[in-house]
C-alpha cells in the first residue's frame, strides 16, 4: 500500500479538524477538533517514518511521546473547561474575554 494514500487521508483529517476549530465556539468542541488534527499529524508522522527502516524506531519513539503528551494536554484543557463552567456556567469561548486578573 502506497504511503501516498495515508498522507492524503491525513490531509483530509487535518482539514476537517481545522474547520471544527474555526467554526465552533464551544471549548470542548474545539478540543475535540484539535484531537482530530492530532490524529492526522500522528498518521502523517508514522507514514513518513515507515518509508525508511532507519527512521522507523525514531518515528515510533516520537509517536509514543506525542500520545503521552496529548493525554496530558487533554487533562489540562478539560480541567480549564470545568473551571470555566463552574465560574461562568457556559463553555462559550467568547466568555473567556471576561477572565481577567
Amino acid at each position, binding site marked *: 500500500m502506497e*504511503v501516498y494514500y495515508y498522507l492524503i487521508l491525513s490531509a483530509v483529517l487535518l482539514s476537517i479538524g481545522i474547520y471544527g476549530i474555526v467554526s465552533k465556539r464551544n471549548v*470542548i468542541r474545539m478540543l475535540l477538533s484539535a*484531537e482530530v488534527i492530532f490524529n492526522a499529524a500522528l498518521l502523517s508522522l508514522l507514514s513518513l517514518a515507515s518509508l525508511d527502516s532507519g527512521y522507523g524506531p525514531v518515528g*515510533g*519513539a516520537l*509517536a*509514543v511521546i506525542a500520545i503521552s503528551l*496529548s493525554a496530558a494536554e*487533554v487533562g489540562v484543557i478539560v480541567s480549564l473547561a*470545568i473551571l470555566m463552567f463552574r465560574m461562568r456556567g457556559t463553555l462559550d469561548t467568547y466568555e473567556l474575554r471576561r477572565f481577567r486578573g
Partner: protein
Amino acid sequence: MSLPDPDVLIFLASAVLALVSSALVILHRSIVYSAFFLSIVGIANAILFSLLGFPIIALFHLIVYVGAAVTFILFSLVMMREVPTVEPGLKVVTFSAFILTVLVLSRIFLSVGAQPSFYLEYKGLTSILIEKYWFALIVASLALATTLIEAITLARREV
C-alpha cells in the same frame, strides 16, 4: 480474477470510518456523541498504524489515547451536566465499535507472524527511547503525573 489484497480492504474501511467519524465529531449536536466518535477515529487510526508496521504504537494508541484521554473527556462531560441521551442508533454504533476493536486486535496479532516491508520491534523502540529520548520520556511522565493530580483535584470539587 484474483481477490483484492486484504490490507487494501482494511485500509479502505479504516479510512472511510476515520473520515466519517471525524466529520461526526464536528457536526453531531451532542458533545457526548462527538467524544464517542473521537474514540472511533482513534480506533481507525490504530488500525492504520498497524498496517504501516507499527503494531506497538497501535496498541499504545488504543490503551493511552482511546482508553484514557477520550474516556477522560467523556467522564468530564458528565461533570458539566451534559447527560448523554440514548438515541436509537446507539446499539448499532456500539456493535460496530466492538467489531472494529476485534478487527484491530486481530490485525495486530496476525501481523506478528507475517513479513511486512517494515516492522517496528519492541526492543528497538525501548532502546531508542532510553538511549536517545530519555529526557522527553521523563517530561512526558511528569506531564501524565500532572494530569493525574488535576483529575484528583477536580474530583474533590473544592476548587
